[in-house]
């Protein structure tokens, strides 16, 4: 499983490095979304600083939907799906590998978005730095859950529109926990409780994915 996971993660990252979709499309989209949100909430630094954690995660969720779709589209183009299915890869390893690649891509995007919230939404730099571990934990859970939901939505009629319907309700608790932990890191509060919830969610999603991802391959 570990060997397959590393193989699949390396493959996904190599594809991303070649195509540069993240660099030229996803990150600019995230930055633009952050700018638009900043415009929409108005110039008051107090307001934007207060809303920044939630706005950061809304943009991150939108960005993650794009990336999950992209991750699955790579696997589901004509010919690719059949020839890769014929390799008979260990599906638990594929799941972990794709989630790992997605995590790294989301982490890189998050760094840019965190710089954005410091610059545009007036979050103090030290607050953003303290929030980084909770952000990493949140995107790890989103990567794992997103890989699962992406596979469920892949290859059906309208996967790009079906994925948000399936994934957003599931992301909502993660968004809440992520936003609260970010806010706690910036302004103080019960950070440990939210981190614990995120860790539990991560463990549950990883366990479910390892057990059930194979069932999705057969469909």
């Amino acid at each position, binding site marked *: 499983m570990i060997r397959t996971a590393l193989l699949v993660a390396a493959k996904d990252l190599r594809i991303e490095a070649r195509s540069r979709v993240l660099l030229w499309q996803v990150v600019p989209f995230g930055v633009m979304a952050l700018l638009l949100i900043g415009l929409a909430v108005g110039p008051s630094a107090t307001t934007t600083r207060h809303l920044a954690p939630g706005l950061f995660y809304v943009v991150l969720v939108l960005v993650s939907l794009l990336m999950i779709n992209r991750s699955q589209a790579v696997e589901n183009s004509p010919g690719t799906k059949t020839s890769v299915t014929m390799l008979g890869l260990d599906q638990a390893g594929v799941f972990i590998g794709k989630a790992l690649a997605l995590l790294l891509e989301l982490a890189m995007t998050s760094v840019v978005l965190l710089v954005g919230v410091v610059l545009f939404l007036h979050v103090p730099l030290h607050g953003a730095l303290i929030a980084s571990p909770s952000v990493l934990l949140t995107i790890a859970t989103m990567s794992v859950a997103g890989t699962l939901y992406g596979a*469920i939505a892949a290859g*059906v009629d309208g996967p790009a529109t079906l994925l948000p319907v*399936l994934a957003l309700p599931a992301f*909502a*608790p993660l968004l809440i926990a992520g936003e609260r932990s970010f806010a706690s890191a910036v302004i103080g509060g019960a950070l440990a*409780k939210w981190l614990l919830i995120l860790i539990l969610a991560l463990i549950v999603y990883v366990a479910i994915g390892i057990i059930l991802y194979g069932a*999705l391959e057969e*469909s």
Partner: protein
Amino acid sequence: MKLFAQRALGPVTLVLLGLTIWLGIWVTPPDAVQGNLARLLYVHPAVATVALYLSYGTATVASALYLWKRTRSMTLDRIAEAAVEVSLVFIVLTLITGSIWGRPAWGVWWVWDARLTSTAILGVLALGCLALRRANDDPVVRARRSAVFVIISAINVPIDHYSVEWWKTLHQGATVFNPGGGLKVHGSMMWTLLLSFVSFSMAFLWLLRARYRLSERQYQNTERALQEALDQRRAEVTN
């Protein structure tokens, strides 16, 4: 058992529901604090319990059994589909009755409270499951994907259950399944409350059975259509 389901389930359910309504509206006294508003006690907790545990629980168990090779069968898929649909109905009823109760109690129809939000999320997940089923033509593909989705989305059930303990919320704590173990209502109110759980559970079984039978008929039609399609395809050769 089958005979009971066929003949008596519907009438018994209607009688129990009728009894619950009669007791709830005309027999039990108003609450000391909330007055007549508290009569929603005989609807809201029961529909919420059916929605979260009985209905979504049935869908989850049926989905898990479907995915396990030894027990895999399209019957389980049909049960899971029916349970998700019935769950959605009960979740909507939960939110509506909760809003009716909340408006006079909290002054608003809706608050972003942990319990309400997690219940609404579960409702959207149930909708998502139905959307997923409609996006797949192939019955086996549809069954597998929705089974996996139901199991993943069932994570939200314990989140919903413990939300009133984990977060400070406006929603009151559990009336029956509370950590202290004791019931928080007494006398005729207690009996009517317990009866409401029984009658809405029966309503769930009744709706589940009706929806399952509809699916089964659709499946039989599909099998007939497949046989006709096979005969037609074979006839292409002889022609």
